[in-house]
């Protein structure tokens, strides 16, 4: 039984069809990948899944519940969290504050107007734990904008994780990273794998092939292939296409 499902998604912007009859399912506890060339509709698909856009047609189902067209905040509260391709941190916050704001416990206290946000030991410990989990232990007091690129990416995932999601969507986690940082990121995601359900968009095929349990290939707004990495690797179509780096 899939935890998260997309059923027959259609998406049109004006007269341009971006997504056409996309059906996907992401089983619980697995890491699923979505890949495809630039402009294939990956990111749009992602935005539809996480509630940023409402699909023209079709349904998005999470844990047996239809969440199509719900506002992002409602979807987020149900346990769907996402990272962003263009890094989307709170730049003037410290790393710790970035994580803190994302904690559901903080969200529940959001209309607390007089408490001390940074004075709650329990909250701060949780934030510290998240930072540690993404390899940023000790970097809590640094301003997000002063972190290195790799650290920022890790923090990006940390913020998504802090929301304590049941499904974590990662939007091109490797984009812009160097080899070392990619290796570090791979390590981090591998650690998370199994703990929660992960869906990643990626055009770095090598990276995704090494991590994912199953992969869907999107092209021209359609799912053109699905399978395990091994199956796809053997597929001549995928090998011949220019979908990304494949050693």
């Amino acid at each position: 039984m899939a935890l998260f499902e997309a059923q027959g998604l259609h998406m049109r912007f004006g007269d341009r069809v971006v997504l056409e009859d996309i059906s996907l399912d992401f089983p619980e506890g697995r890491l699923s990948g979505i890949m495809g060339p630039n402009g294939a509709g990956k990111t749009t698909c992602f935005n539809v899944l996480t509630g940023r856009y409402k699909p023209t047609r079709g349904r998005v189902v999470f844990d047996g519940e239809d969440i199509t067209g719900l506002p992002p905040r409602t979807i987020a509260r149900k346990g769907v969290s996402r990272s962003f391709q263009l890094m989307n941190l709170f730049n003037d916050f410290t790393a710790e504050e970035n994580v803190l704001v994302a904690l559901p416990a903080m969200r529940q206290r959001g209309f607390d107007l007089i408490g001390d946000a940074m004075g709650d030991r329990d909250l701060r410990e949780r934030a510290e734990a998240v930072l540690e989990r993404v390899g940023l232990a000790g970097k809590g007091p640094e301003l997000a904008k002063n972190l290195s690129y790799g650290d920022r990416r890790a923090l990006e995932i940390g913020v998504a994780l802090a929301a304590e999601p049941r499904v974590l969507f990662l939007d091109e986690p490797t984009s812009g990273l160097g080899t070392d940082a990619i290796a570090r990121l791979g390590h981090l995601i591998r650690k998370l794998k199994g703990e929660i359900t992960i869906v990643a968009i990626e055009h770095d095929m090598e990276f995704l092939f090494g991590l994912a349990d199953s992969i869907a290939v999107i092209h021209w707004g359609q799912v053109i292939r699905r399978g395990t990495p091994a199956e796809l690797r053997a597929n001549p179509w995928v090998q011949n296409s220019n979908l990304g780096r494949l050693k």
Partner: protein
Amino acid sequence: MLVAFAIFGTLPFWISEIGLYPYLGAEVLIFCIYALGYNVLLGYGGLPSFGHGAYFGIGAYAFGLAQFNLSSSLWLCLVAAILAAAFFGAIVSLFISHRRGIYFALMTIAFGQMFFFIASKWTSVTKGEDGLLNILRLPADFGFAAYPIQRNIPFYWFVFGCFVVTIIVLWRVVNSPFGKVVQAIKQNEARTAFLGYNVVLYKAAVFTLSCAVAGFAGALFAMAQGGAFVQVMNLQWSGVVVLMVLIGGGFVSFWGPVLGVVLYFVARDLLGVYTDTWQLWFGLLFMLVVMFKPEGLAGIWQGIVYRKQKPRSSASLHLLVMLRGR
């Protein structure tokens, strides 16, 4: 914080000696309250309102009307002013909270102009351009004792008390979970929404809050002036508070608005003595600040402190954090 309290807390003892006068002190403090409240919206929430004078004016009128028609209790009248400003702020926030940037700013102008227009037109209530006159400085009744605040110096102390309360409340608000969320919205509204926050509601809340503070300041101003006049609601005066907040450095410091208000009033009062064209000099000064030190006075101050205090002890760090605000 201590420095500010020390300066304003002793002001009546020396202000006359330096050629100024207590009424100016009271007016400065009232505008500090207004500007600090405004800065929660602009500096922390990143929401530029160019029609905030409206809520200041609503507070002033509400205070006067409450005094004439409802009650002669200072506290009740103040509460009425705050509630009135908050009420209208809340209504407006319904229309503007899902807007951002320039569209937000423009909508606030449009609503501000509407309130200004209604206040000028509704002469049977507001007395139009003549002003709602004879608003009294009601005695501050603390239950066990009542203090008259008719004269300028006791009135100054009263305003100072209000200032301290406002500072404490706003300081707690900006450092509360709510304050953090508001700051998060300023930095990245979409991301905050994806973290499960109802950003529209938060924006509405922070707008309403700052309107309430503006109403509070407006009520005090009505007491200071002994009347409520429609001009404080016009676009120019709404612009002035933005100017004071930014020139002081509201974007980088909780205290920025205080510096800005002090600079604005003192410079104006002193320049005004020597020249009728103070607007020219002030405009030039303002342009220079925006060009060369957009972080404002607080930014300059921070620059000095940071440079001097490279190796910081924890005590001075603590002090610094208090001074900078964040």
